[in-house]
């Protein structure tokens, strides 16, 4: 830049009005901007003047989420670039090509899923697929990202748009869990959801666990996680159901599937708030998370005000203000994660408060 186009502090006052009215020659305007960007004193002075252009400038003072830089870096490393839209004359050909590709991906995807025993319905496939899964070589980050894309495409091709899914989720607490799954976690967890359970019934369940020497690995007012063999789980179910006053007090989302008698499974119990009937616990399945993806997810949670309460292989539990749940979900979708939610966000007036809600996440650590 030539010397005559350098603006000094002493010149700012003279050039201020023409700058605000956009009457400076282009070189002078540029030099003025360069100066005020590097001189805080002059910048504050210019911005203190009441002018419309300054108001627009001030509107740019927004807060930047703390995870923005790492999100961009993450996207670069882990997400495939978006395919640019086809030009108009080639649109028909592109539509045909895409249709063929979707059919091919769907076909290959189904074949792939069958091979790896992923995505299964309760009534058709066994519950525990650990042995088959552990024989598979963990995919690299790149493979993981590609597979993630394929899963998304297959999911989209199968017609379950995010909107439709969202509508389904509101009633997810009353339908079998596994029929909604996109992928499978390892080991297959078992979920029970107690709907508006009375404290006395909750007590009976805890007594049943105690009598069978089952010690929860994580326990809060709303959430209990424990590991037990299929045999012990059967005994718990038997004891609780037989002593319950309600007709269906216990919902075992995996009913109908064989539980291995001698192998341990992880059981997650959710208790809805008895008095307010507000769901304070959510459960998510996040499909195919590499260690890097997991680290990124944890970072997102923390950047939105969530805190990690508990973490153990394949599972973590975090708390987050209820008001931030939708934001968190959108942010996770931006990252390209596929996740399925069980639980519903109450939206009755006055109920959507900043009370922390607990979310438990099961994930597969870099493998299906």
């Amino acid at each position, binding site marked *: 830049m030539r010397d005559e186009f350098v603006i000094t502090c002493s010149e700012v006052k003279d050039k201020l009005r023409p700058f605000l009215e956009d009457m400076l020659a282009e070189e002078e305007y540029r030099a003025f901007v360069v100066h005020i960007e590097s001189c805080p004193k002059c910048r504050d002075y210019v911005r203190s003047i009441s002018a419309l252009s300054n108001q627009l400038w001030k509107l740019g003072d927004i807060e930047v989420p703390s995870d923005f830089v790492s999100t*961009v870096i993450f996207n670069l490393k882990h997400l495939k*670039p978006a395919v640019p839209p086809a030009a108009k004359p080639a649109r028909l050909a592109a539509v045909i090509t895409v249709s063929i590709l979707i059919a091919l991906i769907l076909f290959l995807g189904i074949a792939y899923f069958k091979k790896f025993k992923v995505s299964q319905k309760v009534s058709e496939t066994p519950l525990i697929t650990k042995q088959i899964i552990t024989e598979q070589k963990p995919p690299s980050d790149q493979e993981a990202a590609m597979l993630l894309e394929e899963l998304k495409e297959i999911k989209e091709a199968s017609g379950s748009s995010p909107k439709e899914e969202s509508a389904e989720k509101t009633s997810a607490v009353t339908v079998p869990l596994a029929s909604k799954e996109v992928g499978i976690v390892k080991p297959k967890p078992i979920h029970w959801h107690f709907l508006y359970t009375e404290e006395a019934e909750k007590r009976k369940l805890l007594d049943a666990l105690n009598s069978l020497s089952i010690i929860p690995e994580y326990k809060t007012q709303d959430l209990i996680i424990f590991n037990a063999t299929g045999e012990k789980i059967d005994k718990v179910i038997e004891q609780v159901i037989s002593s319950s006053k309600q007709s269906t007090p216990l919902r075992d989302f995996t009913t109908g599937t064989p539980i291995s008698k001698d192998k341990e499974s992880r059981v997650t119990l959710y208790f809805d708030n008895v008095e307010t009937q507000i769901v304070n616990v959510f459960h998510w399945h996040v499909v195919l998370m590499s260690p890097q993806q997991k680290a990124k997810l944890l970072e997102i949670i923390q950047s939105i005000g969530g805190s990690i309460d508990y973490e153990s292989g394949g599972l973590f539990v975090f708390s987050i203000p209820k008001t931030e749940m939708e934001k968190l979900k959108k942010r996770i979708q931006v990252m390209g994660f596929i996740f399925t939610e069980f639980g519903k966000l109450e939206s009755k007036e006055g109920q959507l408060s900043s009370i922390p809600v607990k979310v438990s996440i099961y994930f597969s650590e870099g493998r299906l």
Partner: protein
Amino acid sequence: MYAQDEETLKSLISRYQQKILAFALYLVGGDRDKAYEVAASSFAEAIRKGYPLEKGDVFFTRVISVVFGKSRDIKTMPNLDEIDSMYYSAEEKRSLRVVQTALVKLSFETKALLLLRDQLHLPYKDISAIVGISENNARVQIEEARFSLRKEIEEILNREG
């Protein structure tokens, strides 16, 4: 792949993230999540396209250009939060809120032109390249955009008494 440039990238993103996010925010009608998505993917796209990282200003203009392209077809309902900056007095915030509300009512192109010049202070040459019009047209249309914004502000103030 980008390891050697990662530190440069982080520094560049940090330098321009607020401007890019703000530009995206008003172009998409105030939806913060959508703006975040557009801004993050625009940075990534600009980097993938190999835009010169070492020339910060040029890189910034290219990212802005990508944001402009990506935001064009996004339809969101105006959803403006309170002015979140802690640096302004209550009176200033009210005033900014009026401008913000008026801005969101303008057409996509009008908003973009105003933001490119009066918020980002880009040269007309760059603005014309981003929007795809001549420099002279950019000057005329930005003047018209300012007039439209003033008109919207007046209407809001009249309504509020």
